[in-house]
């Protein structure tokens, strides 16, 4: 018996030690200081957000990294890789929740020794990772998540940046679009997924509508649970209230299901749909969405991105690789990578040198850089948050080809709260200082 117990304790000690050792050895192997610029790319590769957001983003990252390593981009991004150093992308899955993402973020930085991290679609992941980025002093760009709390709760952020827009911009922009094109709408309604994103979107939309469309009233709101897929009851509840506008912040499969079901039930014939994330499925609606449905792209991205050399090149390269036009998450990923490249090349380090996180942060803070979506000004959140305009337009499907018509763009100053003012306060005060074109 004595013998058994000692064997057991040896077993236990050696087991734990062996595990730790293998892990430690593997870390040594992957932490090669090979002169390459290692970038961690985190986005959804599995789960419901993978199809609409994660996969287009990862594809955009692959296209861009490959082309940057060959030096194929137009000026000013024609230098090879990042500051002359070849880029090595480490792509990992964002699925699994905030605790796991914090763990994987630490693995990226401490085990994989990445020089910068770009990623995060989920707002919860952004909020969880931001303090860790500061703790580990790692240059990090949030490319898509929309929560307004990011730089409110991390107001002294040094290393965390966001090149995508705050979600309140989507909804202020949506109301401005209604005010510009349909100033007489009176009956508003909404259907949102019942989680932070849907709740915040609807709160911003209704508050902005109360100011910019004072004649309007909210006649119905529905909060089905996320990934529900069947919206028969909600569509009936909306239909009987005879709304003129049906606002929705749905995305991905939920959004496509809603459009399909609401269109078949006639809701989208009587009322105009307004989908803040609608552009992400532009190529898949075909004739199942009515013409005239208002869609947005969370900024000047995807089909709303302006004509410029960079965007023409990006669309061509993306199309050549995947036979599809880039949707807005793809454009946003490209923008984040260009932001990183801009930061590195303006950090004032020697050619082929890899700048430190502090140098990268200094290179991007408050900067304005050319991107696939036009010029990006890092003008909010103490120089850490991008400010750009936003555009909305109507879906138009004709002869087998989907396009956007009647597009109206609003400048960044028109839809973004001034520095230090929260979106909710700014809307409540009636948008003081907004400069609209």
């Amino acid at each position, binding site marked *: 018996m004595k013998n058994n*117990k000692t064997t*057991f304790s040896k077993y*236990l*000690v050696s087991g734990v030690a062996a595990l730790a050792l293998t892990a430690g050895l593997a870390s040594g192997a992957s932490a090669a200081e090979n002169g390459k610029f290692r970038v961690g790319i985190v986005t959804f590769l599995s789960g419901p957000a993978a199809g609409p957001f994660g996969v287009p983003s990862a594809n955009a990252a692959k296209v861009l990294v490959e082309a940057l390593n060959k030096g194929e981009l137009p000026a000013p991004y024609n230098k090879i890789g990042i500051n002359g150093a070849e880029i090595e992308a480490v792509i990992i899955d964002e699925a699994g929740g905030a605790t796991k993402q914090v763990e*994987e973020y630490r693995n990226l930085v*401490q*085990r994989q020794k990445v020089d910068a991290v770009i990623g995060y679609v989920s707002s919860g992941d952004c909020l*969880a990772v931001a303090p860790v980025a500061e703790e580990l002093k790692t240059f990090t760009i949030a490319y898509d998540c929309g929560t307004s709390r990011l730089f409110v709760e991390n107001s002294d952020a040094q290393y965390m940046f966001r090149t995508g827009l705050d979600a309140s911009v989507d909804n202020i922009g949506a109301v401005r679009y209604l005010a510009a094109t349909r100033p007489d709408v009176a009956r508003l309604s909404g259907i949102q997924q019942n989680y932070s994103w849907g709740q915040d979107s609807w709160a911003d939309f209704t508050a902005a509508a109360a100011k910019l469309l004072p004649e309007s009233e909210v006649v119905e709101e529905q909060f089905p649970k996320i990934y529900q897929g069947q919206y028969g009851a909600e569509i009936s509840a909306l239909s009987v209230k005879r709304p003129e506008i049906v606002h929705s912040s749905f995305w991905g499969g939920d959004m496509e299901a809603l459009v399909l079901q609401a269109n078949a039930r006639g809701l989208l014939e009587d009322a105009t749909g307004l989908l803040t994330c609608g552009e992400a499925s532009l190529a898949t609606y075909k004739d199942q969405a009515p013409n005239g449905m208002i869609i947005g792209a969370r900024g000047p991205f995807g089909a709303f991105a302006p004509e410029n050399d960079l965007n023409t090149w990006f669309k061509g390269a993306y199309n050549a690789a995947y036979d599809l036009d880039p949707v807005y998450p793809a454009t946003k990923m490209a923008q984040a990578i260009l932001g990183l490249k801009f930061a590195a090349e303006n950090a004032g380090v020697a050619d082929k040198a890899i700048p430190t996180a502090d140098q990268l942060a200094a290179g991007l803070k408050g900067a304005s850089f050319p991107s696939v979506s036009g010029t990006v000004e890092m003008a909010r959140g103490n120089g850490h948050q991008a400010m750009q305009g936003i555009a909305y337009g109507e879906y138009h499907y004709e002869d087998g080809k989907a396009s956007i018509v009647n597009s109206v763009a609003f400048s960044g100053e028109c839809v973004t709260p001034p520095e230090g003012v929260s979106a909710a306060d700014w809307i409540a005060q009636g948008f003081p200082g907004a400069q609209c074109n």
Partner: protein
Amino acid sequence: MRFDKTEISLAAVAIACVLFGFVSPGWLIFLLTIAFAKALVVQGVVMQMRSGLVSFGQGLFYCIGGYTVGMGGQFFGIHDAIAALSLGMLVAIAVAMVLGLLLTRYRDIFFAMLSLAFSMILFGILVKSPGLGSTDGFNVHNWTIFGWAPDGGESSQHTVFTLTVLAGLMIAVLIHRYTKAGIGVICEAVRENEVRVEYLGLSPRWLLYGNYVSAAAVSALGGGLTALATGHVDPEMAYWTTSGEFIFIALLGGLGHVAAPFIAAVVFSVVRTYAIELVPHTWQMILGFTLLGVIVFLPKGLWSLVSRKKAGERA
């Protein structure tokens, strides 16, 4: 008080872990912290499995522990980590004492589904609470320990790691004594034949009730430690997939020994993190095959590797 060999081994491993923490890279410390914290929740699951009940809702107490630590710091000014962790356990005990009255009337799948339901109710409540950040959750920071504030970064990481290892040791020793004591053995008897236990003059229901409440406290401790280590809590902690993960780890380790959940949790974390790194698109498949392999080849979990060897020696 006399310590048996298992307890001494556990203490030795715990001391080795703490020392190892000073020389290992940050990511590994974090991985082990989370693994050990989750292992505590798994201990809660295993305690109930031993008495024949499978809780599909242990995430409820994991989440209560995490949110109590988070809310204590955010809203009630409780910044001391020990106080916050204890409060989390107290809240979990209070909730479990109420829910246990209902839950211990049920067995098998009915218990599993009902425990799952309560966990999802908490998830639903949190999702509908914008003040608590809804699905995005909120950060947990600025905690202290006995009035000492670790100055961010490595020192706070080491502190949480040490705290987790010590908590793990304490709980492991307690559970070890519990399972060896008469009451722990009766738990297994309840699993095998509840009616006979009743004929012996014992009340299986109150036994299960006590078991349920103590499992809740252990799980809440795990949740609180996770919140301190991660620095963020979100309602995902109460979601059914999180509870599923705990059952996964419990099955991986087996019911054979108090150390099994700890080993299984470390194996699970290491397999998962390397699967994510090496096959980013299909890492779930690797996890699935791992569990499948364990179920097929080691139906009593990873611990049977050890016990089988012991049996061999004896023969």
